[in-house]
């Protein structure tokens, strides 16, 4: 029976030859992840179960990234719980401050999530790792607690949607714009429960960083996962980092899809998602004058070195508008050091931006750049829900790093071509 990449990975982890969408199956987990918000609940449940050991000390990753460096006493207590748990159960991949970065940038960078894996994370953007050809999906803390005991998790096998991208990318159009455009097209529940499989010549030519940005936002269309078949670019990224053996799967040509959509990217310009849903997208040329108070460049969506390079290209030799605050968040210590070595931090500071340590921080309105009443931000993050970055009356406009940087200079939302 012809199978999609998603079905093949799930079947292999369920000890089966094939699986069918809609089936409930139990699968073996290659990596389970939790952060400083979701791990404490899982830890409580695990301790209450009185089970003496975790299923595998090398297949659990605990990343305190959301409110770290600890923003207050209560967040410090949450991280203490993770630290204590990690020591007690000899969890190999607990990332202390200094090694810690935003989880979905950190785990691929450290070679902990690989092609062909099944990965679950108590964080909705766990779907990011699909960019490497893994089946990766967000679950809750209770799922993580149960998996820490059994090493398994239950899933309904998702149907797949095939999204084909053809044509020639325009200047300043990135993976972020492709995924925003797609969400604008199918809506925030357009792929609920489904696997979004990104294919086509444009994807094959897309850098791995952009692929991760796309898979990252599959959840913003309600999807269970986003996935891209591994190719040479994937292997170039994976080989120097992989901490384990891995296996590459691809979809059979005659596999079954519930829906197939084709996009000619030649018609897609840089996208901006207006409040309060990621589906409220417009091309940059259709955006009127929208003054901004803040620009944020970072997050698991766009906090990689490639994103910072793009922002630096725009900001080099310029200063931002006097009414704007610019916050740049390198996603991991490695990204930070690389940005420093390449002189990017100098460019950001000279432009009158600030550089934050790696953290989720402002992305979820946690700290380090929370918005006040009525304030407006352009952000390279992934959500613009009511109150996402602060006060319920504040507004978030989602865009790629080039648009965010250009907007900081212009003092209003605009593209690099307007500079």
């Amino acid at each position, binding site marked *: 029976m012809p199978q999609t990449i998603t079905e093949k990975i799930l079947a292999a982890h369920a000890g089966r030859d094939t699986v069918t969408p809609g089936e409930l199956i139990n699968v073996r987990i290659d990596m389970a992840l939790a952060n400083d*918000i979701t791990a404490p609940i899982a830890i409580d449940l695990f301790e209450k179960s009185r089970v003496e050991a975790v299923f595998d000390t090398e297949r659990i990753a605990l990343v305190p990234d959301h409110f770290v460096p600890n923003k207050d006493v*209560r967040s410090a207590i949450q991280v203490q719980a993770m630290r204590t748990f990690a020591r007690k159960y000899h969890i190999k991949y607990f990332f202390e401050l200094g090694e810690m970065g935003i989880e979905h940038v950190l785990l691929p960078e450290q070679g902990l999530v690989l092609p062909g894996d099944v990965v679950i994370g108590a964080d909705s953007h766990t779907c990011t790792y699909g960019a490497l050809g893994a089946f990766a999906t*967000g*679950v809750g803390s209770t799922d993580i607690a149960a998996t820490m005991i059994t090493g398994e998790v239950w899933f309904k096998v998702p149907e797949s949607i095939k999204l084909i991208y053809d044509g020639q990318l325009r200047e300043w159009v990135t993976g972020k714009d492709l995924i925003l455009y797609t969400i604008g097209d199918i809506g925030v529940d357009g792929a609920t429960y489904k696997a979004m499989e990104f294919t086509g010549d444009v994807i094959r030519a897309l850098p791995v960083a952009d692929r991760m940005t796309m898979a990252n936002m599959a959840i913003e269309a309600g999807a269970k996962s986003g996935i891209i078949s591994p190719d040479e670019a994937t292997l170039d990224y994976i080989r120097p980092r992989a901490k384990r053996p891995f296996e590459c799967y691809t979809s059979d040509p005659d596999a079954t899809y519930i829906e197939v959509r084709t996009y000619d990217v030649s018609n897609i310009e840089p996208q901006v998602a207006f409040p309060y849903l990621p589906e409220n997208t417009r091309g940059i040329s259709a955006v009127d004058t929208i003054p901004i108070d803040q620009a944020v460049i970072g997050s698991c969506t766009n906090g990689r070195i490639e994103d910072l390079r793009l922002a630096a290209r725009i900001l080099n030799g310029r200063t931002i508008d006097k009414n704007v605050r610019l916050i740049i968040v390198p996603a991991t210590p490695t990204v930070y050091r690389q940005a420093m070595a390449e002189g990017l931090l100098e460019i950001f500071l000279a432009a009158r931006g600030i550089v934050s340590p790696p953290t989720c921080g402002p992305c979820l309105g*946690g700290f380090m750049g929370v918005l006040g009443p009525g304030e407006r931000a352009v952000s390279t993050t992934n*959500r613009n829900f009511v109150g996402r970055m602060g006060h*319920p009356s504040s507004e978030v406009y989602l865009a790629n790093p080039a648009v965010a940087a250009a907007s900081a200079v212009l003092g209003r939302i605009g593209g690099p071509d307007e500079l």
Partner: protein
Amino acid sequence: MKIEGTVRKFGDNIDTDVIIPAIYLVTTDMGELGKHCMEGVDATFAEKVGPGDIIVAGKNFGCGSSREHAPMAIKGAGISCVIAEGFARIFFRNAFNMGLAIFECPGVFQGIQEGDRVSVNQDTGEITDHTNGKRFLANPVPPFMQELIEAGGLMAYVLNKRRL
């Protein structure tokens, strides 16, 4: 089992950031989370809500983050169950795993109004609006998830199986 309560109504795409804003994610205490339930859409919701009230909403309820604090906040606020046109996937999963009763039921958003008295038969999925007399039938719960509910949530289910 039967649930009965007064309806608190919300629209489409009620996301986890409005169900429980991130600034409150520094605790795992259900009662405390409950005090800030729905704060993003209605700042006084937790004060107004009565014990056993039922949330009725449109499509894609619970979209966004995987935070289990969202179903916990709803439970902590005293809500007995959530009936929606549709649920976002992780919220749906979390609700079953941690034991918040939810029902997917097309037609409820049009048919049920704020303040209506509604009852739900958990075994049959029958939903009755006693204020306007309308009846609805919730989508059936897959057998495995029924097992989860009967076990008392995922942890109890997993631990029971281990003991066998």
